[in-house]
């Protein structure tokens, strides 16, 4: 298993380590529920060094990205971030990514951990196929360290160490600054449904920042948070997880990525997606809540009127809402909020109801 630059620190903190897409990652330090609550009520610190950072720069950078991404990033400002997906020729999702515009002709694509190598070769292949020679694609993942600081006290904690005023940094925007004199890129964004920051620097410096944040944050209730709570936090916020809720057999129109898919422009997969849209979708990813005791998990079957009609992609017990919720694929006619479904939990069909996403929305 690959180790992040923070691995020894996780061991020292007593974390339980699991294999996550080939990476040895902390799943929990104390317990999932405590870490979840710390993030919702105070702040949580996450090792995200495993995720990928692919730089795209040069005069044809925008042209390449417009071909790769489902979203129109024509008007994306320098310092702005956009959520998008990359699709294959059939419109299937290769990855969901955030795209940072850092300069006139300079972008960074932040990828999932398990998909990074695949993404990189896909991007390089498309660059060659399109005959774009005036753009450079660089995999910076090993050189880049990333930690997420999430939760309502994130700004207060980070402000203690940051060279710049964080208040003017708005949601889904990034800025170069220094943290403890170390050059970093800080964006106001994340994967928890809370206010917070993603902090990028060279991997050799990430440990120092991690230690100092934990030290300064301790008095504010900051805790290190593992992948267990990262999963419950993102699910409550209605966010999807690549490999769990979607893969290359799923199109963005069937999940909650319709809004980042612009069929007015040409990109890999756009003609397939147009056809699918004209034909009409068959299934949709929806949120559900259990109406009786039991927790639906990934892979559990969904029934309606005695027939198997779908499958659960994510499901858990959510600490903030204190109930069992999840995401499932169901046929479009059954996808409306309020619809009753049954989910097979072991030898029992348990009642569940389709609800609006997200399950949790923070108070602003």
């Amino acid at each position: 298993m690959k180790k992040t630059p923070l691995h020894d620190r996780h061991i020292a903190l007593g974390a339980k380590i699991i294999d996550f897409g080939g990476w040895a990652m902390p799943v929990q330090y104390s317990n999932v529920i405590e870490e979840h609550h710390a993030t919702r009520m105070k702040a949580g610190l996450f090792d995200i060094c495993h995720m990928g950072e692919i730089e795209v720069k040069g005069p044809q950078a925008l042209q390449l990205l417009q071909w790769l991404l489902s979203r129109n990033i024509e008007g994306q400002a320098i310092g702005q971030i956009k959520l998008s997906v990359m699709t294959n020729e059939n419109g299937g999702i290769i990855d969901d990514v955030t795209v940072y515009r850092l300069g006139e002709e300079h972008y960074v694509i932040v990828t999932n951990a398990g998909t990074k190598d695949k993404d990189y070769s896909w991007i390089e292949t498309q660059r060659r196929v399109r005959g774009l020679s005036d753009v450079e694609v660089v995999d910076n993942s090993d050189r880049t360290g990333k930690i997420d600081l999430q939760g309502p006290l994130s700004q207060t904690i980070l402000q203690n160490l940051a060279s710049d005023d964080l208040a003017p940094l708005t949601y889904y925007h990034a800025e170069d600054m220094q943290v403890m004199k170390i050059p970093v890129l800080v964006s106001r964004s994340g994967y928890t449904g809370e206010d917070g920051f993603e902090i990028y620097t060279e991997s050799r410096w990430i440990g120092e920042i991690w230690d100092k944040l934990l030290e300064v944050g301790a008095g504010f209730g900051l805790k290190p948070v593992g992948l267990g709570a990262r999963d419950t936090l993102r699910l409550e916020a209605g966010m999807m997880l690549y490999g769990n809720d979607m893969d290359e057999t799923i199109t963005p129109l069937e999940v909650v990525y319709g809004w980042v898919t612009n069929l007015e422009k040409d990109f890999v997969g756009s003609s397939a997606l147009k056809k699918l849209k004209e034909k009409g979708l068959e299934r949709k990813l929806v949120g559900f809540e259990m109406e009786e005791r039991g927790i639906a998990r990934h892979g559990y079957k969904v029934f309606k009127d005695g027939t198997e009609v779908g499958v659960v992609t994510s499901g858990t017990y959510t600490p903030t809402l204190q109930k069992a919720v999840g995401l499932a694929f169901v046929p479009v006619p059954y996808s409306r909020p309020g619809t009753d479904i049954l989910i097979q939990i072991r030898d029992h069909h348990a009642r569940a109801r389709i609800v609006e996403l997200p399950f949790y929305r923070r108070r602003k």
Partner: protein
Amino acid sequence: MSKPNPSDRKYSKEHEWAMDNRDGTIKMGITDHAQELLTDIVFVELPAVGKKVKQMEPMAVVESVKSVSDVFSPVSGEVIEVNKELEEHPELVNQDAFGKGWMAKLKMDDPAELNNLMDAARYTEMIKEEKH
């Protein structure tokens, strides 16, 4: 650190305990070591009263936020009572695995089956070895 394993009961290699009530019935649950491995237990699925179970076959399910685990029956027999309290308060298993977190009472088919289980000293030794 888990709590010491009480010497008034027997233990299975799957981390269940069984207390002989000396009337042909036992009370059972999972050990403190087991709850520590599972961490935050958020759901316990208990068998129906009257259900027949076999020694070391799955009889209940405990779920943490992340995981689903079977609980194995320490003896063969019939379920005569379950701890209903766990439906509303699964965290009792975390807080008091050997006491308020008990799961079921069983009427044994064959009390001699208790001899297939470990005493506290041997179980303690076993979990110590697992850690290495």
